[in-house]
């Protein structure tokens, strides 16, 4: 039998569904850090984040039979995480987005905001700007810049047409840039 680590996500799902539910641990191992990283954009409190993450993995397991193996598993699991994060935000509060130094560098490079004197200030401003962005712009921007997802994947995660994803990212980027320049 092939080692679980050698199986693709989709093969792993089939194996969990049909053969061995213990193999689900491999899915958790593969996605725990990625999803925690993604969810941190919505939920800053570590305990709340852990609760939501646990809920995501439980929901994913429960609904495993609903997954269409001709599709990409990562988009499907990100969609569930995304919906859970939104539910959490609805239930509790709108939070400031957590951005770490590497991500700040990505934003800086992509947005090309010139002459930033104080990087700590920029970090605060990026967090604030992202938090103030409309959700429809914020979601694709987070997935594109911070989660490194392609337009196709973002389209599958957010259930939006690919062209719309492109438009939202471009508009969101422009709003973000304007906000940062205005705050300098």
């Amino acid at each position, binding site marked *: 039998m092939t080692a679980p680590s050698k199986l693709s996500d989709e093969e792993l799902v089939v194996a969990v569904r049909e053969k061995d539910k213990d193999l*689900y641990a491999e899915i*958790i*191992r593969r996605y725990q850090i990625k999803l925690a990283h993604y969810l941190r954009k919505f939920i800053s409190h570590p305990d709340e984040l852990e609760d939501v993450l646990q809920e995501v993995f439980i929901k994913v397991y*429960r609904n495993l*039979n609903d997954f269409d193996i001709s599709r990409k598993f990562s988009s499907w699991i990100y969609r569930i995480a995304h919906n859970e994060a939104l539910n959490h935000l609805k239930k509790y509060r709108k939070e400031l987005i957590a951005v770490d130094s590497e991500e700040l560098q990505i934003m800086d490079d992509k947005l090309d905001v010139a002459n930033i004197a104080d990087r700590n200030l920029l970090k605060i401003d990026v967090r604030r700007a992202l938090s103030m962005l409309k959700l429809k712009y914020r979601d694709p921007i987070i997935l594109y810049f911070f989660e490194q997802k392609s337009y196709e994947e973002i*389209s599958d995660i957010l259930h939006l047409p690919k062209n719309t994803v492109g438009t939202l990212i471009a508009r969101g980027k422009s709003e973000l840039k304007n906000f940062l320049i205005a705050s300098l």
Partner: protein
Amino acid sequence: MSTTNKDKILDLEDKVMSQIKSGHVQLRSRLMFLAEKLGMKGIFLLCASFAVIFFALVLFYFKQSDNLVYLSFGSRGLYAFLESFPYLLVVSFLILIFIAGFIIRQNGWLYKQSFGRLAFALVIFVVLLGGVLALTNIAEQIEQGMYNSHSAGQIIHPFLGRGLSNRARGLSGRVIEVGADFVNVQTPWEIIRVDMSALSLPVDIEAGEFMIAVGHRQANGFVAEALHALEEDDMPMIGRGVRRQFGNYRPMVPGCLQACFGADTPSGTCREACFVK
């Protein structure tokens, strides 16, 4: 990776896997998902099918009722047009389209396409199919069901019944008597005196002909502001199961109806009493 992070990762994995292994968290059955999907698709198909039927009924209503005919009077016919408009039918059609669109959106079907385009395609599909359906006699059969079946009639009547109701600003029926500046008209509900003294142009109309008028009601009848005769084929509602209510034309004793109305006798009784024997 720090030791704390590693511990947390193992901790979460253990928490989730222990719930799965204990059976506390279980896979939902495939049949459940299948039933949910079929249920949603069924509701969508039902909404789309009803939207098609309702659109066919809207077209049928416009064709068969007096609603659009009032527009031939220009701005004077506007009130009668608005009064006889099938609001419930049109609103129900729009609600069904909205629900069908909502189901598509909520379920993420065809999300790769823009929703605007999908909604447009849905409307075009429903309108085209409804138009084709209107060419068949299905709408008439539905209407016949309204008269023939008590239970079905109760469901359909609120939608189509407006085509048969009495109007405050419009009137159509068969002329049964012609006076100096009035005509007595048989409608599906009553015999009514139509005052023609307010007409801007004289109208040549004979007993036995069908007519349609716009104006307003008064205590003793209907004051026509505009009126014209109609061919039997063009008479609204004539093909809508109410032919018998207009009755066949028979000459009447001149002046008899007016005298009868004055005595507070029901209009149907007057009609029977005033036919030339």
